[in-house]
């Protein structure tokens, strides 16, 4: 099997240029690539387009990259946890393309799967339908939506092997498998890097073919947005 292991986050993001289109895995703060986000902050790469379901919070996740003005445009479904985001959006420093969450997931899947466009009912009759083709199938109206692809997809998994096969934990899977396929270069940071052959082939969520770089992550904070407990 091909060995895709690299030294760490700094090497992983070293060749990401200003103006790159990035996909970043995670739902809220769950499953975000913490190590790579830190490396992007250190590197200071600018004018990024970030495709990610959310934009982090003020002091964690993509929110940190907003603070440093590294992001020019966000493509997301929900961005409501972030004051700095709001400020930059209202001042025109930041561009935002809002996409329904299922459409976002499917556009990313389409990008990885070589499907340039598909039809979905989400958003018909709403302002997000503006400028999009509407077509009726079997008596129901659908919008045509186009694929999304990235120069670099940056995701985090629970376990990964040296060939890039990945397994996610709990609901930390979310957008990451589709992003892995939609990135020209996909970088996976993992909580546990294991030798090739250690993962059961039937349990792999993301086959290694979609991953170009993998490294053992460290110091995961795994911050929780809404700690809700029962007695």
């Amino acid at each position, binding site marked *: 099997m091909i060995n895709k292991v690299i030294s760490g986050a700094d090497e992983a993001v070293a060749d990401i240029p200003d103006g790159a289109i990035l996909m970043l895995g995670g*739902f*809220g*703060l*769950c*499953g975000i690539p913490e190590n790579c986000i830190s490396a992007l902050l250190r590197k200071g790469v600018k004018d990024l387009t970030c495709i990610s*379901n959310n934009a982090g919070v003020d002091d964690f996740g993509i929110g940190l990259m907003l603070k440093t003005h590294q992001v020019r445009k966000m493509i*997301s*479904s*929900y*961005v*409501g946890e972030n004051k700095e985001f*709001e400020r930059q*959006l*209202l001042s025109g420093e930041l561009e935002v393309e*809002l996409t*329904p*969450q*299922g*459409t*976002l*997931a*499917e556009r*990313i*899947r389409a990008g990885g799967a070589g499907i340039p466009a598909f039809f*979905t*009912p*989400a*958003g*018909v*009759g*709403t*302002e*997000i339908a503006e400028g999009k083709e509407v077509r009726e199938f079997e008596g129901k109206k659908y919008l045509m939506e186009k694929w999304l692809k990235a120069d670099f997809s940056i995701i985090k998994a*629970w376990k990964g092997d040296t060939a890039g096969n990945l397994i*996610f*934990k*709990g*609901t*930390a*899977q*979310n*957008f*990451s*498998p*589709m992003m892995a396929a939609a990135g020209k270069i996909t970088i996976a940071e993992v909580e546990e890097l294991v030798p090739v052959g250690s993962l059961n082939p039937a349990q792999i*969520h993301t086959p290694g073919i979609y991953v170009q770089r993998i490294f053992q992550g460290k110091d995961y904070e*795994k*911050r*929780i*947005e*809404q*700690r*809700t*407990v*029962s*007695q």
Partner: protein
Amino acid sequence: MLDKNQIAKRIAKELKDGYYVNLGIGIPTLVANFIPEGINVVLQSENGLLGIGPFPTEENVDADLINAGKQTVTMVAGSALFSSAESFAMIRGGHVDLTILGAMEVSENGDIANWKIPGKMVKGMGGAMDLVASAENIIVAMQHVNKAGESKLLKNCSLPITGLACVKKIVTELAVLEILPSGGFKLLERAPGVSVEEIKQATEGKLIIDGEVPEMDV
């Protein structure tokens, strides 16, 4: 007048055995606390979980296991985990039997507005547009009137639409209403102590009253 928990409790009576259900943020989430005895339902979370369980105990909090409201949760026996693409394939493909969500406005033909208030910060639609465009069966939990006393059950929505002609039933603090295929809010039940006249006053859209309207049992 019902409080939030009573609205949730009344909606819970709409659950049928074997239903897969998606609960939106706010009052809909409370519905999980009132699932009737003997009724087996499975809760879907659009971030990739079928089979949401109760909130975890402090020792069992897992940052990698959250619901769509970003709250820490648990899984029941028989749960399944999956990607967001699979999750919305479920939703879009009509596999979820019932969707319960909140709304700012609903029109008499079932249009719903619940994602954006012009002039205020836009947070985004999340999964709401996918849910309302796809679900066969949508129940809305909402307040009948806003803080200024203005009706939120309208002829036409004034806010940006989330989806067209999709709401089937509404439960408010005042009433249970069905949206007829031909249009109009048909009054099904009154909240305890609330008169038909009060509901009429609170409803801007076409209210359809057909005979005696029973008081609801909550």
